[in-house]
């Protein structure tokens, strides 16, 4: 199961890039929902919106799970952020900085195990770490005046959401993608039954 070849092939670069672009489109649609129905639900109590935060962190987990090469999480998350910036995100370069921080944090989980394991626990850890980075940036950028209790609660909620949605969700997503046969050229697609 271990892939000793760590060099990125063209197909690795392109599939991660296109995934990032597709996530950029998903974020754009998610943003419409985030600002629409969810705003109504969570508008009254801002820290609660942290619960659905994990969606933004999916690329940081799915990229590495799909191609299993060093740097995939960072590359995928940053590129997805650049795409949403180019799609006309009002936040400019801020989203790219978020992408960098979340990507590096998620990457750390896979790097800690020398890119040898791509199982569920690692995915969950990667999601939680990416969530930690995101929450940290939010606290610096938007909520520096919050009281410490709120800061801790917010960080905890974001990490939980990231671990569940981006971590476990990303792992399930990758498994579902493998079952469609589109990942045949990647180690993640070879664990699946031959067709």
């Amino acid at each position, binding site marked *: 199961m271990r892939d000793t070849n760590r060099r990125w*092939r063209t197909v690795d670069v392109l599939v991660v890039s296109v995934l990032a672009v597709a996530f950029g489109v998903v974020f754009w649609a998610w943003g419409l929902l985030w600002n629409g129905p969810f705003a109504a639900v969570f508008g009254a109590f801002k820290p609660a919106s942290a619960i659905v935060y994990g969606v933004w962190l999916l690329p940081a987990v799915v990229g590495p799970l799909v191609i299993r090469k060093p740097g995939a999480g960072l590359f995928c998350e940053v590129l997805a952020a650049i795409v949403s910036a180019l799609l006309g995100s009002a936040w400019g370069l801020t989203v790219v900085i978020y992408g960098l921080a979340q990507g590096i944090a998620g990457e750390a989980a896979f790097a800690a195990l020398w890119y040898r394991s791509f199982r569920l626990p690692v995915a969950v850890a990667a999601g939680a770490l990416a969530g930690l980075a995101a929450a940290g940036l939010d606290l610096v950028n938007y909520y520096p005046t919050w009281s410490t209790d709120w800061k801790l609660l917010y960080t905890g909620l974001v990490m939980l959401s990231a671990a569940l949605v981006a971590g476990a969700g990303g792992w399930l997503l990758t498994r579902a993608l493998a*079952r469609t046969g589109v990942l045949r050229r990647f180690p993640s697609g070879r664990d699946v039954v031959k067709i």
Partner: protein
Amino acid sequence: MVEVQVRDLGWRHAGRREWALRGLDLTIPSGQRVLLLGASGSGKSTLLRALAGLLAADSGDGEGEALLDGVPVARARERVGIVFQDPQTQLVLSRCGDDVAFGLENRGVPPERIWPQVARALRRVGFPYHLDHSTAALSGGEQQRLALAGALATDPGLLLLDEPTANLDPAGAALVRTALAEAVRADTTVVLVEHRIAAALPLVDRVVALGPGGGLLADGPPETVFADHGPALAAAGVWVPGHPLPRLPAAGPAGAPLLSAEKVRYRRHGADRDALPAVDAVVREGEALAVVGPNGGGKSTLALLLGGLIAPTSGVLRAAEDLAAGLDGPPHRWPATGLSARIGSVFQNPEHQFVRANVRDELALGPRLAGHPREHVDATVDDLLDRLGLAALAAANPFTLSGGQARRLSVGAALAAAPRVLVLDEPTFGQDRNTWIALVQLLAGLRDAGAAIVAVTHDDELLATLADRVMSLGGPPTGER
């Protein structure tokens, strides 16, 4: 200027049990132009990829060898140019000139020599636009011309063409064939894969047909191959020119109108021109209506409107009371479950409509949403699996199906909800002869049972075989003929 030698060539894609290609021996002398034929799944595209050196060792298992002038393809890749089927996924850069320059940059051509070579390649294919023109603003035919220029820019001795006109409307296909006839040097070896053969024949001097299990079905000059092996090739799914197709006219006269569109017009939000200029259309029970016209004329938009999936910007689409059966208002306001039980839509890309994890659930969705009891759902699904030839694949993930299987499933999934109107967008696109015939017979059967069929198509054979009435869109004048 390249001689191709293939010896005992075989390839199995990673994750597959079956070999895509096996035991193939073939020699193509320098400067010959070969049309490569075979049923779906006979390994035509795999052979082209092998000749282009694109089958990486880590993406499957290989056997035998492919040589260009005696050198293994992996070390002779710079002598090969290839043009693929889909224009969207083979252009790399956003400006036309940059895209042609891409291959030259990759091969380390000094910068000062790149732009003259780009200009020469664009002249050869008769490309009319400036270097800075956006690749996204080109039509499909123009994009394929540009892709051809990109392949020719490096002066390949072997040019490989993988169904370069399959995704184009007739005008775009003609544009590409003209460019091919004029741009390719006489001494360039050419291997062309095409489904629709008649138009490609003037470009080639040899026909090679691959058999389903590996090896050659036929090989020789076009006249000889089709005279000697015509019926066998047709039976294997190859489109043999002049080989007769069934004719399936309606059993009786068209019945009552089910849908009538009055001056329906559609403009996308924020667009500066209409995707569909105002048209009238009537859909009748027991009739197959074909909608034809050039790309960009609004055919697919009309299909979405008749399918009740988008709201017209102006004009109205009325459903007969008989069809609406209790639902109020125009079809685009109907709830989704009610819509799918009355008007079925089949999209151009079958995969867009897959929403379940296996073939059986995909077919069961319609009857389940309609609230039928379990036995009824099972009976409907089993019947459809049989009729579509998908019984062996009931547990397969829909996305793993081949092009022909996916097409049949997408039609079957729409039929499972038992709609009285079926709207199809390019249903026969890229299908081999056997799938084509099975599909057309299925549609004819539905029509003769009283359903209304609307097919948006470029396919002349479909018009001749099935259409009871033809509506022409785009280009003046708009209306029925």
